[in-house]
């Protein structure tokens, strides 16, 4: 059956005055191999259908043949911009199944690297978003700061992108000497630069014109579609798993002071130093999602500072990773963690041997990208990269 005759697809019954445009999978602004089929009437998009699966690497099937410790690198390559958070999610769910608690020092270390990776991930999101909209310079500024984070991570575990650092049971190695000072210095360097980003993007008139009122995602729709993370908080829904999640995860953040970045009564927490919400911005539009990420960077910097102190003050070791042949008790466990792009969940079913029975990764961007077809309806062609960029997707995570 020809695709044009299938009523379920966006290409159905296309008229001669409409255009069918294929955006991707190779495209400069789709953040990976995403294929968007757009049906347009000139510049106005009448329908959009995202097609994924170009980066499917069968990670879940492979997980049925490897021990949990061996499967950690596969989680790295899901959201490769936030590998620490992916590792953390997997390590926590395995430990939840085993009911294995990591010592206090290890917990603080995990928070430290996870939040640093959140900063790095949001920097990429911000930089590439500017690039999508035609502003080339913030991209390089963001990567300049991200280079410093990557250097820090390289000192910790030897890798710049896919760390495999947080493993079930602990971490692969403790921090090197002098790393805490390096990290503190990096935070000092990052703070004034955030103002530059705001000046170049957040309060730039052209940026506001391109993002305010574009791609408005109502809060209820976001929840119904399963959107999570900055996409959900940008629509005004107050949910952050670091505060609201399962005790097995929120205990990691016990004793940390941080605010959930969501708009309440027209204000964001701790936004007094940063540009105010412009009049044209509607809650749930691209600007709000972008702004949430910017404020989360500052928030994460604060958490990292606290973690540095807590780690230095804690005694003991950081936990021992479990062995490869460690028998997993039969049962199942599901745990979601607050990754930079949303709620990343892992579902683990075991049958008593050292190899899991079923491994399932619930990707945060999977639900976020499914909303694209609704958001892109009725917008202009130039808004499509703005919307897709504001959802901040990584195809590695969506396709696994």
């Amino acid at each position, binding site marked *: 059956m020809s695709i044009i005759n299938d009523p379920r697809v966006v290409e159905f019954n296309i008229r001669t005055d409409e255009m069918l445009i294929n955006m991707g999978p190779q495209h400069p602004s789709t953040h990976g191999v995403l294929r968007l089929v757009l049906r347009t009437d000139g510049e106005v998009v009448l329908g959009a259908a995202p097609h994924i699966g170009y980066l499917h690497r069968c990670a879940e099937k492979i997980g049925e043949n490897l021990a949990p410790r061996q499967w950690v690198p596969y989680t790295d390559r899901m959201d490769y911009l936030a590998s620490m958070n992916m590792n953390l999610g997997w390590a926590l769910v395995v430990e939840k199944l085993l009911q294995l608690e990591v010592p206090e020092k290890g917990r603080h270390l995990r928070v430290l690297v996870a939040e640093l990776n959140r900063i790095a991930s949001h920097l990429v999101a911000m930089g590439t978003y500017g690039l999508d909209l035609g502003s080339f310079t913030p991209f390089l500024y963001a990567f300049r700061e991200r280079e410093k984070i990557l250097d820090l991570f390289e000192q910790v575990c030897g890798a710049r992108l896919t760390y495999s650092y947080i493993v079930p049971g602990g971490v692969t190695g403790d921090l090197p000497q002098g790393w805490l000072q390096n990290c503190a210095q990096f935070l000092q360097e990052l703070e004034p630069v955030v103002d530059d980003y705001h000046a170049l993007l957040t309060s730039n008139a052209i940026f506001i014109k391109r993002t305010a009122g574009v791609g408005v995602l109502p809060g209820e729709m976001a929840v119904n*579609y399963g959107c999570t993370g900055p996409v959900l908080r940008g629509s005004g829904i107050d949910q952050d798993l670091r505060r609201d999640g399962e005790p097995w995860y929120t205990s990691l953040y016990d004793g940390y002071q941080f605010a959930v970045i969501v708009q309440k009564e027209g204000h964001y927490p701790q936004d007094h130093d940063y540009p105010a919400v412009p009049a044209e911005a509607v809650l749930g539009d691209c600007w709000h999602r972008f702004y949430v990420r910017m404020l989360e960077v500052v928030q994460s910097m604060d958490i990292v500072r606290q973690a540095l102190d807590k780690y230095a003050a804690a005694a003991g070791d950081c936990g021992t990773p479990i062995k490869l042949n460690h028998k997993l008790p039969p049962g199942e466990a599901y745990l979601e963690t607050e990754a930079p792009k949303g709620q990343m969940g892992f579902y683990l079913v075991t049958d008593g041997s050292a190899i899991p029975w079923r491994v399932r990764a619930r990707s945060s961007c999977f639900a976020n990208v499914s909303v694209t077809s609704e958001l892109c309806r009725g917008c202009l062609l130039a808004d499509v990269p703005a919307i897709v960029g504001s959802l901040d997707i990584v195809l590695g995570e969506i396709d696994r």
Partner: protein
Amino acid sequence: MVADATLVDRLRHRFGDHIVSAELETIDPWVEVAPEGLVDICRYLRDEPGLQYDMLNCISGVDYLHTDPKKAAQAAWQPHLVVVYHLSSTITRQRLVLKVTTSRWRQDVAGELPEVPSVSGVWRGADWHEREVYDLMGVRFTGHPDLRRILCPEDWIGHPLRKDYQPPEYYHGIRDH
């Protein structure tokens, strides 16, 4: 916080036989539900004040089949498929796990996919999750608006995550291994 006895009683009281069983003593307690009542139960869970499970986090398929005959003989269960629904509420901050058990082939005719009603009318997010379970595990969701493969190519044959899946030797002339 999670499913407990009061919730199970409430559901049993309302839906009777559709609540097949409940396992409350595990790390993540679950409630097993019959396929026929799935949509009504989900709608109730979403809309009932005090429950308000407004977010569907994940739908997973788990294939219980031992390909090794010795292990199959020792197993406590017969081969079956389970579709697992993880729900949560942004309002009450609670979580719930639902399971639906179905046979691996519809009426045990090999090649005919088992059917489970679709909950995409209750949570729009189920749309893509169900497409993925259909694609990788081979469960047909009745009432789904657009049940097509999502991760594998449209013309792929077979359902890869099944335990007895054999990958094809050639795909469009490209040799697999």
